């Protein structure tokens, strides 16, 4: 163990400002510690202020940044400042962000990940404030001239395209579709043993109105060559370490050419918010959300399977031959998760609802979706799956819309009940009781959703 005499920044500066500057801003780190400084610190700062970083060099020598004073209560020396007010949150931590519901549950702040509790998905169209957030890198600064936002389509194309959002709007016909957006890891928390990653329940999904142009129209203009095999999508969000690509995933050309894919700039009729990838993002519905690149700046048409960060190994991949849960994975035994699995959720009543004594009947509302497929059937049970009742399932507004459903269930007495729902997709595949096909990063977890109610 290294010598552990930890000194605060204040102490460092108090003792020897010049030395502190050399050590803190000089950034001549040893090989073993480069991640702390070169990778994360300065570069991250640079990204936050918009690239160039004359910042560190311009800091007055030997001066503690003004914020150090701000972090201490007035009149108290810095060393006497109490522990950060942001002590570990008890229970769920809720999102505090302009334009977002304060009932979204934060799974992580760096990167920002927040899910929507099932009962908040009770609207037919998910309002923007209730749509989940899954960022993988730093959240970029908001673009102030969206129509000048530029992206390229290159690689295996006859005409490399460089388009601004303004040109995109002018040249192609806009369409609006209600589309499910779902994180590839949705349902991860249901795996046993625990799978690695953000512990989503069912809230890494939502279904909002997206406006944009068909990706296929843009690809037609680019002229995709017969050598094209796969795509690679890139966004402008900086890696958490401050340098390099955060995430770049893609899809086979057949999926890429699907007429339901959009390049979007509006969410629920409003300009696409920065936090959701604005001004421009991809919407490749039905597949893990990570292929729908946010802050889109490049679509690379490739002559082989894409190998960007987030492709290969066990990322967004599931085991071909079922593996022993918790075992070390054999990476040769994995394939990409493509279409998302069937999922049905109860959006009303909320889990934990108390009903008046003597309640004999409960009206249920919910939603179901199934990746590339439609939902054939939704069933509900109040007796742990011993008996089932079919729900009334609405038709989707358009392909890749979710399907709302309603049902009424009878309760025989007061007491504790769990209401379960299971969906069946168009091919007859039904949700399992528990998350199966365990994989190290927990993809494809879609066990039946259950909510508990207490009567009386």
């Amino acid at each position, binding site marked *: 163990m*290294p010598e552990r005499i930890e000194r605060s920044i204040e102490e460092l500066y108090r003792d020897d400002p010049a030395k502190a500057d050399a050590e803190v801003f000089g950034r001549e780190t040893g090989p073993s510690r480069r991640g702390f400084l070169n990778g994360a*610190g300065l570069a991250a700062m640079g990204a936050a202020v918009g690239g160039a970083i004359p910042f560190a060099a311009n800091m007055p020598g030997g001066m503690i940044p003004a914020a150090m004073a701000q972090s201490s209560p007035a009149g108290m020396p810095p060393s006497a400042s109490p522990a950060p007010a942001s002590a570990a949150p008890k229970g769920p931590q809720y999102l505090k962000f302009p334009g977002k519901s304060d009932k979204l549950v934060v799974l992580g702040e760096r990167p920002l990940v927040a899910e929507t509790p099932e009962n908040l998905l009770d609207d037919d169209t998910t309002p923007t404030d209730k749509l989940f957030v899954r960022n993988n890198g730093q959240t970029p600064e908001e673009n102030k001239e969206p129509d000048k936002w530029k992206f390229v389509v290159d690689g295996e194309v006859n005409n490399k395209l460089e388009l601004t959002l303004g040109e995109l709007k002018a040249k192609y016909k806009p369409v609006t579709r209600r589309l499910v957006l779902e994180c590839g890891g949705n349902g991860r928390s*249901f795996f046993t043993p625990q799978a690695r990653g953000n512990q989503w329940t069912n809230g890494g999904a939502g279904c909002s109105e997206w406006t944009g142009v068909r990706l296929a129209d843009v690809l037609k203009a680019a002229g995709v060559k017969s050598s094209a095999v796969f795509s690679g999508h890139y966004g402008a969000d900086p890696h958490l370490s401050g340098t390099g690509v955060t995430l770049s995933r893609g899809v086979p050309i057949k999926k890429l050419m699907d007429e339901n894919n959009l390049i979007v700039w509006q969410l629920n009729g409003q300009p696409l918010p920065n936090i959701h990838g604005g001004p421009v993002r991809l919407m490749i519905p039905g597949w893990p959300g990570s292929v729908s690149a946010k802050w889109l700046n490049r679509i690379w048409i490739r002559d082989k399977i894409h190998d960007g960060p987030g492709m290969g190994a066990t990322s967004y991949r599931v085991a071909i031959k079922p593996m022993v849960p918790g075992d070390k994975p054999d990476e040769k035994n994995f394939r990409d998760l493509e279409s998302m699995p069937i999922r049905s959720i109860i959006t009303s009543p909320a889990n934990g609802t108390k009903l008046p004594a003597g309640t004999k009947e409960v009206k249920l509302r919910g939603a179901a979706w199934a990746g590339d497929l439609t939902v054939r059937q939704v069933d509900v049970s109040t007796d742990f799956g011993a008996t089932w009742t079919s729900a009334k399932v609405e038709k989707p507004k358009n392909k890749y819309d979710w399907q709302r459903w309603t049902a009424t269930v009878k309760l025989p007495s007061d007491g504790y009940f769990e209401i379960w729902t299971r969906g069946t997709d168009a091919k007859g595949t039904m949700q399992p009781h528990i998350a199966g096909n365990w994989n190290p990063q927990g993809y494809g977890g879609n066990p039946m959703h259950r909510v508990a109610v207490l009567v009386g």
Partner: protein
Amino acid sequence: MTYSHAIAAARLARLLLFVTIGIALSASVAVAQTFTPRDESPEEFPAGAGRDETFYTCTACHGFKLVAAQGMNRRQWDDSINWMMEKHRMPPLEAKERDAVLNYLEAAFPPRAPAGGGGFQNPFMKR
């Protein structure tokens, strides 16, 4: 540069990040949509040997809340560090540091008892 100074520097770097964003926020309405992560500190997480090293190793890139949300055995934690280095640009750790980090992760965030209900928790149970 000593380890403790590296930690201090990492703290300052992150503090400056927040300051910078704070300045930007006051200067421009548009930037108000940039999300500012809450600052975390090691003290928020289970005490144990190697906690601070682990905290500053992981938080060079991502929040520690993500780490604390995992529950794995030592082999899985070790795999995760390899995965972080191979796929997520984590700089390699010296053997002694890696050991210290693994010791902490193994002790502080072991596999959780199977929930039985696959993550479902009865909301009415008195805790």
